[in-house]
């Protein structure tokens, strides 16, 4: 099978990347190791978004990525070749792809040792909790009226994704099981999509939030539960609570195929380019992103991969179509390289966003986020230059 882009992983970022590539007119194949698409959205509904919302999101994504070849049950195997002609083995299929986008996400692993605890039946990871809540077979009924506590920022400090997950799950536990929910964390981020509203909802439902002032909460196992000491005020007296179930944050390990991706670069969290040309990285594999972040990131990776295929050259920069720009400042706020500013365009006779080409790294974040669709990644492919050469140069 010959495609222009092979996307590895059919989670939210992989599907959104595939859908964006399809929109750009590329021939795409999506490889997924599991038997169905959706990644975390399917395996642990309620983790990235409230369960019902997650299901609708997944349906929309699947519909948008429909024209791409979805190869489920095909884990990515060996990779050979180079940019323009990667040869990929996936299960019993062989693929030739011009570029590869890695959207394989992270593997979540509960590590009670981080909390100074032994593994136990009443210790769960966040994704386990999400899985159990969605499983009608799981008998969570005995948690009714008990006390469930979420502990964050221990295994994975400051993870926006995990904080959002704990928020969605806390609300679900409170609603479905009528259990008392406690929330322990270093700091609460409500920067993610819709999290502010979710936080208010949780407060209204009676979820108790503990923010530790420099000292993490201490847990001790008791018969049938745990005893928690938390220090909500600096130098103050500890608060002591008995809980029945502890839900802990998990360690996240990149879920990478066994490929040689070259030496890791220092700020690999920013760009979509892996050290190996022609291979791009997106989604939770690349950075700590919530669902909305993953969807946008997939589109950005698609723009970068598309620009790469058009040019096979490093001179990829964002360009603004000045008359179309809505001057909403989205790109100015989002650009991780501070390459965007509002400037006057003499030709268009109006102000619009302008790219500082020296600062732009062609990451495509602005392309994905622009609500007016005014930004594209440009490059100047060899064919363009030779076409001009052969047609006797430009006449303008």
């Amino acid at each position, binding site marked *: 099978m010959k495609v222009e882009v092979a996307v590895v992983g059919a989670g939210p970022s992989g599907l959104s990347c595939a859908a964006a590539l399809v929109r750009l007119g590329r021939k795409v194949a999506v490889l997924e190791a599991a038997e169905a698409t959706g990644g975390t959205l399917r395996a642990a509904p309620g983790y990235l978004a409230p369960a019902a919302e997650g299901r609708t999101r997944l349906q929309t994504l699947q519909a948008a990525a429909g024209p791409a070849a979805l190869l489920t049950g095909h884990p990515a195997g060996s990779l050979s070749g180079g940019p323009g002609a990667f040869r990929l083995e996936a299960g019993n299929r062989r693929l030739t792809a011009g570029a590869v986008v890695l959207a394989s996400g992270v593997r979540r692993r509960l590590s009670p040792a981080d909390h100074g605890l032994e593994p136990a039946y009443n210790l769960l990871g966040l994704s386990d909790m999400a899985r159990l809540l969605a499983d009608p077979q799981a008998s969570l009924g005995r948690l009714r009226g008990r006390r469930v506590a979420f502990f964050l920022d221990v295994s994975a400090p400051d993870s926006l994704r995990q904080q959002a997950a704990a928020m969605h799950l806390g609300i679900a536990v409170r609603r479905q099981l009528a259990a008392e929910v406690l929330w322990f964390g270093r700091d609460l981020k409500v920067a993610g999509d819709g999290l502010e509203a979710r936080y208010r909802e949780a407060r209204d439902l009676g979820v108790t939030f503990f923010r530790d002032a420099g000292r993490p909460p201490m847990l001790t196992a008791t018969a049938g539960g745990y005893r928690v000491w938390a220090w909500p005020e600096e130098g103050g007296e500890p608060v002591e609570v008995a809980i029945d179930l502890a839900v802990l944050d998990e360690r996240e390990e990149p879920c990478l195929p066994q490929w040689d991706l070259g030496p890791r670069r220092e700020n690999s969290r920013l760009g979509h380019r892996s050290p190996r040309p022609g291979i791009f990285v997106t989604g939770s594999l690349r950075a700590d992103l919530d669902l909305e972040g993953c969807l946008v990131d997939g589109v950005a990776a698609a723009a970068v991969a598309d620009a790469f295929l058009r040019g096979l050259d490093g001179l990829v920069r964002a360009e603004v179509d000045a008359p179309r720009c809505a001057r909403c400042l989205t790109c100015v706020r989002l650009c991780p390289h501070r390459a965007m500013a509002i400037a006057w365009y003499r030709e268009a006779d109006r102000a619009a966003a302008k790219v500082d080409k020296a600062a732009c790294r062609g990451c495509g974040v602005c392309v994905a986020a622009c609500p007016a669709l005014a930004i594209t990644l440009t490059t100047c492919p060899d064919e363009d230059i030779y076409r001009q050469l*052969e047609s006797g140069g430009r006449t303008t």
Partner: protein
Amino acid sequence: MKLLAFVCERSALRAAREARELGAWPEELELVAVPCSGRIDVLHITGALTRGYAGVLVVGCHEEACEFVQGNLVARRRVEYLRRLLEQAGVDPGRVRMELASPAGAPRLARAARELVAEISCRTGGKGEEA
């Protein structure tokens, strides 16, 4: 005889257009616009030479004016490298030249262009040369 100029869209293209409007641009010199002179590599220039162009002029921005930071310097290094190669291969290195220009530098660029055309036509006897 025809010659070719690879011009950078940011500066040289504007200067060349202006020179053409002023009538100072030599007729023989055709333009190929690229986003940055750093985009031009050795193969593009040799490609032009093998397509029958008698000479190639690469025009970039002035130093420190390149929007892509050092595209012009990269281009200059490439042109120098190619000139050495051409010399070793027994081709006149004078057929390839690099110029720096500013968007307002139409007269200067036009003069450099006319010089190149005159020099090459002088060397080839006005007939051009197949590489």
